[in-house]
């Protein structure tokens, strides 16, 4: 009994020594790290699938910019997006904006002279790229016609020649485009200068140079891909031709 009491006393002393040394401890904590791996986006639709790069007004060209709306699936908010253009050939893109999980917009810029043809459009979302859709840069050709020619008073029996003070020009986005020139009047007396509907006897002669003239009813073609349009004419008035003021209009047409 005495030993038991002694042990209890010792235990009490030990506890009394230990308990005051209690440690207030909050020595663990956790930090969560989260992140999303994006799915591969799909590209279903482009709001616009083609555009003509240039509008030509009086020979001045401008860049065409279009806001392209892409619709698809799995466009996650917060992802890093880019719109890719295969074989860009001058087409650029910027201002890519996420709107919904199904809609992204971007601005396409199609500069003057941008080559005609198809481009593939795809969307990359944080490293994963969708399939492609086709965007077409349309062909275009724009012509600035040669300046008007006045032959003045023509001498009977003598060929009167002239040329445009300012040759015409061609702006096209593809090689091989051609320009033809012929009488705009394809009805009666085509190819002849007229005065109140009455023609001169001889056909009007036109050509890209002074030495290569042909009748205006059949006209001529400039060399393929020509960018300048020199224009020469010749007219011979005969004795039987009535006096008066004659004119003819030549139409220049681009073909691609």
């Amino acid at each position: 009994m005495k030993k038991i009491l002694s042990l209890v006393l010792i235990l009490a002393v030990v506890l009394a020594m230990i308990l005051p040394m209690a440690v207030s401890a909050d020595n663990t904590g956790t930090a969560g790290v989260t992140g999303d791996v994006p799915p591969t986006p799909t590209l279903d639709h482009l709001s616009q699938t083609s555009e003509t790069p240039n509008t030509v007004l009086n020979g001045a060209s401008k860049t065409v910019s279009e806001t392209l709306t892409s619709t698809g699936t799995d466009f996650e908010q917060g992802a890093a997006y880019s719109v890719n253009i295969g074989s860009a050939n001058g087409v650029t893109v910027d201002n890519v904006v996420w709107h919904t999980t199904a809609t992204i917009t971007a601005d396409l810029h199609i500069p003057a002279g941008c080559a005609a043809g198809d481009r593939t459009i795809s969307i990359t979302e944080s490293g994963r790229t969708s399939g492609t859709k086709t965007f077409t840069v349309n062909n275009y050709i724009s012509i600035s016609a040669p300046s008007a020619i006045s032959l003045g008073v023509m001498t009977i029996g003598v060929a009167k020649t002239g040329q445009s003070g300012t040759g015409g020009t061609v702006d096209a986005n593809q090689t091989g485009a051609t320009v033809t020139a012929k009488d705009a009047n394809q009805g009666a007396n085509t190819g002849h200068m007229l005065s109140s509907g009455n023609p001169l006897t001889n056909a009007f002669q036109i050509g890209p140079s002074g030495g290569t003239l042909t009748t205006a009813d059949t006209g001529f073609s400039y060399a393929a891909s020509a960018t300048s349009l020199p224009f020469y004419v010749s007219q011979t008035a005969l004795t039987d031709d009535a006096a008066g003021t004659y004119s003819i209009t030549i139409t220049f047409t681009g073909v691609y």
Partner: protein
Amino acid sequence: MKKSIILIIILVLGLAVTLASPVIAAAPTLGGIAPNNGTPGPTATVDITGVILTGTNFITGATILVDGSGVSATVNSIDSPTQITATFHLTAGAPAGTRNVTVHTTDGTSGAQTFTINSYFNLSAPAAINLGVMTVGGSATGNSTGSVSTNISTWSVTAKDVKATDPGFMTKTSPYAKLATPLQIKNSTSGIFANANDGITYSSNPTNLPFYVSQQVATGDAPGAYSITITFTGVP
């Protein structure tokens, strides 16, 4: 009768001697302090009120003396010659350990009893990091900072992923998957990344716990929301 007279004389003399002798007041003794320990705060003084000191010879004007740093005591009341009620003031961050406490009166100073400043160790883990939408084929990075406040003199902190399945890897559910490469963690901008399952150890006695992560995403990783929990453990 004669004996009685003699006895009376002796008693009277004795009383006279007693009345003539000076009173010698006794110094205080200190037998116990309750409670005899307290835990300081990390930023503000902690007052422990209602501390009872028991002993003897406590008189008006008694004061309490505490040696060492971080603790002082004020007497609230001297309840009796055997009890004082006091308040112990523990300054912020008072170093852990024992202090000797004595009671002082004009009659002397008591022997000492101990009062213990408890250890505390508070670890605040770095804030959660959201890497957002991670780029496939690239590495997503992020960082945050935790902290430690303690009154002990030596400690260290480790950080690692301790989960049983695929330790070190960010995982997702429904369906379960893990990323191909383990999360990389380090504790400074110039440090070297380690796999999260291997973990990192902060230099000795860190009070700030900068935490940097980097996760590489491979082409073959399945899409989805991934997560991992890094456990920070302080080792006093």
